[in-house]
């Protein structure tokens, strides 16, 4: 066994132990904290799978923003006095669930070990098409060129998630703003973060967007980092969540999918197929679309965490 293998094994055990803890913990908050730690470790696992793009996404969205969502939700639930009063389920039910879980996991493990070798792959096709897109990062090429249709639809899913979350508002609050993310008074340490961390973070976000065409990174990761920065500013109460009726907010939320859809439609007339890019112009167009995707993601994620509008528009 090489050192790397020992390391992998240790990592695997650690990940599973914490995952088990998040399920077993009695307190809601304890499991949420466990989940954040678990997400951090999971992005290291992704590095070990040679998937830096996924690792970045996992760190930013899977662990980072989801962690904040869970923490915020947990705190709001606790604030309203609604955490955990349930009796644990009956033993028979737990045994049944456990048996089913073990069965599924065992079958999955067996099948995963039996997957064919050498594995079928689309890497050669992806390599072949890369030249036409002018990109260097194949994952970005899949997302924005080969399977752009999926990516565009997934952005629409995000818009719908916002509509769904907002639709849960009380009627009188419609067009108002979501509840603030932070507590009342701005405070030293947080203001320090606003001044020091946030500008650096924005720089990192722009950097990830820019290198994403050729190296790991891209619209998702950059957007998520920018979203995190905006949320830090909102937590420190330097700015408040915007009113859901604000025109600029609506436009920012749909900008990504709308520009994506418009260029996709234009491709039908100009590049010989919907969502195709004209030869020679692929890369600038892709970067153009991605810029709007970054904007939309950076606005969408914080709005999803902030929740439905809670203040009537007048106040």
């Amino acid at each position, binding site marked *: 066994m090489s050192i790397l293998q020992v390391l992998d094994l240790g990592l695997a055990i650690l990940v599973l132990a914490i995952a088990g803890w998040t399920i077993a913990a009695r307190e809601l908050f304890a499991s949420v904290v466990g989940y954040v730690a678990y997400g951090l470790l999971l992005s290291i696992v992704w590095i070990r799978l040679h998937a830096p793009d996924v690792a970045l996404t996992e760190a930013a969205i899977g662990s980072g923003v989801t962690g904040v969502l869970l923490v915020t939700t947990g705190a709001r639930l606790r604030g309203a006095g609604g955490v955990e009063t349930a009796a644990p389920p009956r033993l028979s039910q737990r045994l049944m669930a456990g048996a089913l879980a073990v069965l599924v996991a065992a079958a999955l493990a067996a*099948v995963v070990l039996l997957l064919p070798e050498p594995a079928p792959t689309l890497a050669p096709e992806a390599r072949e098409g890369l030249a036409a897109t002018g990109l260097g990062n194949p994952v970005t090429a899949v997302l924005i060129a080969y399977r752009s249709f999926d990516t565009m639809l997934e952005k629409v899913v995000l818009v719908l998630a916002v509509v769904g979350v907002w639709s849960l508002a009380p009627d009188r609050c419609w067009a108002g703003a979501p509840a603030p993310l932070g507590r009342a008074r701005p405070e030293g340490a947080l203001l320090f973060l606003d001044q020091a961390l946030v500008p650096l973070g924005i720089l990192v976000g722009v950097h990830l967007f820019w290198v994403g065409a050729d190296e790991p990174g891209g619209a998702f990761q950059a957007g998520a980092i920018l979203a995190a920065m905006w949320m830090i500013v909102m937590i420190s109460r330097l700015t408040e969540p915007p009113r859901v009726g604000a025109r600029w907010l609506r436009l920012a939320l749909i900008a990504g*999918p709308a520009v994506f859809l418009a260029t996709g439609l234009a491709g*039908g007339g100009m590049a010989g197929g919907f969502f195709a890019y004209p030869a020679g112009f692929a890369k600038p167009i892709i970067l153009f679309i991605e810029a709007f995707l970054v904007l939309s993601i950076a606005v969408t994620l914080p709005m999803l965490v902030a929740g439905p509008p809670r203040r009537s528009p007048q106040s």
Partner: protein
Amino acid sequence: MIETPPALAATAGGSLLVLAILAPVAGILLSFALGGRFAERVALGLTPIGLAIAFAIAALVWRSGAPLVYNVAGLPPPLGIALRADGISCVMLAAAALVIAAAAFYARANFATPKGVMEARAPLAFWILVQAVWAALTILFVGGDLFNLYVALELLTFAAVPLVCLSGKPETLVAALRYLMFALFGSVFYLLGAALLYGAYGTLDIVLLAERMRALPAVWLAAGLMTAGLLAKTALFPLHLWLPPAHANAPAAASAVLSGLVVKGSFFLTVRLWFYVLPALPGGAAEAVLGTLGSAAVLFGSVLALRQERLKLLIAYSTLAQIGYLFLIFPLASGAHPWVADGWSGGIMQTLSHAFAKAAMFMSAGLLAESLGHDRIAEFAGAGRAMPATFFALGLGGLSLMGLPPSGGFAAKWLLLRASVAAGQWSWAIVMLAGGLLAAGYVYRILAPALSAGAIVLEAPPQRSREAIALALAIVAAALGFAPQSFFDFLEVGRAAATALR
């Protein structure tokens, strides 16, 4: 570029498929950006366009007798995403367009933006979500790639769940949350299965998968996981518990769409999976299990429907039963047997007729509840005389549920019955007969008190136009019973390739 094999090549007119999807998607974005009254105008304005595209697609496929194919971004699978419309896609597209259009015009009375406000919550959400349901269903009906279909499933979830709790009442919130949990469970299991299939074959394109398919352990597990996920989304017994409260508590127009169409989306995907991706698997056991679960759903749903006090709940439970019939398509239409054409026609006909009949019934129930101020069946006495058109629509829809002629439901059940007799699989036939009797029981329970004499005061008479919409859908459900043989031949378009693989 490598030459595209003929099975994957795009056909003329394929771009209509992209337009069919992009029209409602653009509608969602436009409605959200413009907000307020524009959302309603965009949605209503799109319905004729969508209908026209759906019928144009159907006409093209009818004329050529072959599926319509489009490769998005000009990239054929496996790297690119293909869209394909065959016979069943076409009829489902048309049915979805019709029901959505009807629901939209029906809903105008409930979801107009009130005067004096720029924008109100429920109307904005409703008009956006209804277009989203439409977009998602369109992709589900024409998608040719299992991952693309996963995104469509998620789109459907995000559209359908908030529709359930538009009113914001606590019981609707519980129903929506429960629905969301089942739906999330369903999509994640579907995704897991898709991962295994990709691991085994390096593609998620339906045609390519079908060509490469062999009975590997990974394939069996993938099929099991994906089916379990899809069943949870379709609310097949025993994963049905979320459906009745969700469908019964949503606004009437939303219930019509949810019960008539949304559950059909995941059912359609199950059909795609078993008949188009996995036909090479030695079937039998799996199909029998699905048929058995369907039978259980028929009996269980019908008995529960008989016991409901409220009309909307009764109709929702009847959906459980009618979903059960759909799953008889698996034992009765798979394999290379002389009876599978009947089984196939019957199953698809059941999907269509239930879509129209159930939408009509939920709309009528909505009108009733608005006019009477309640939907307690026991207090319906005299209502039949006060609102004859509404009850006529209810009755006509009920006819189709019972499977009495003339109705689409009759044609469907007759075909399924014929197939099960020809196959010598009597148990399905017995279930269908029992289900028909039970359905007669619960439809009678609605109509009998309503037709009895009694004095009733309507809070407000129902709008004629809305009654007409419900009635029109019910008439379509009945008229399907007169479908000619050429219609059933059309349902086989694109299926020959799949069955030939066996």
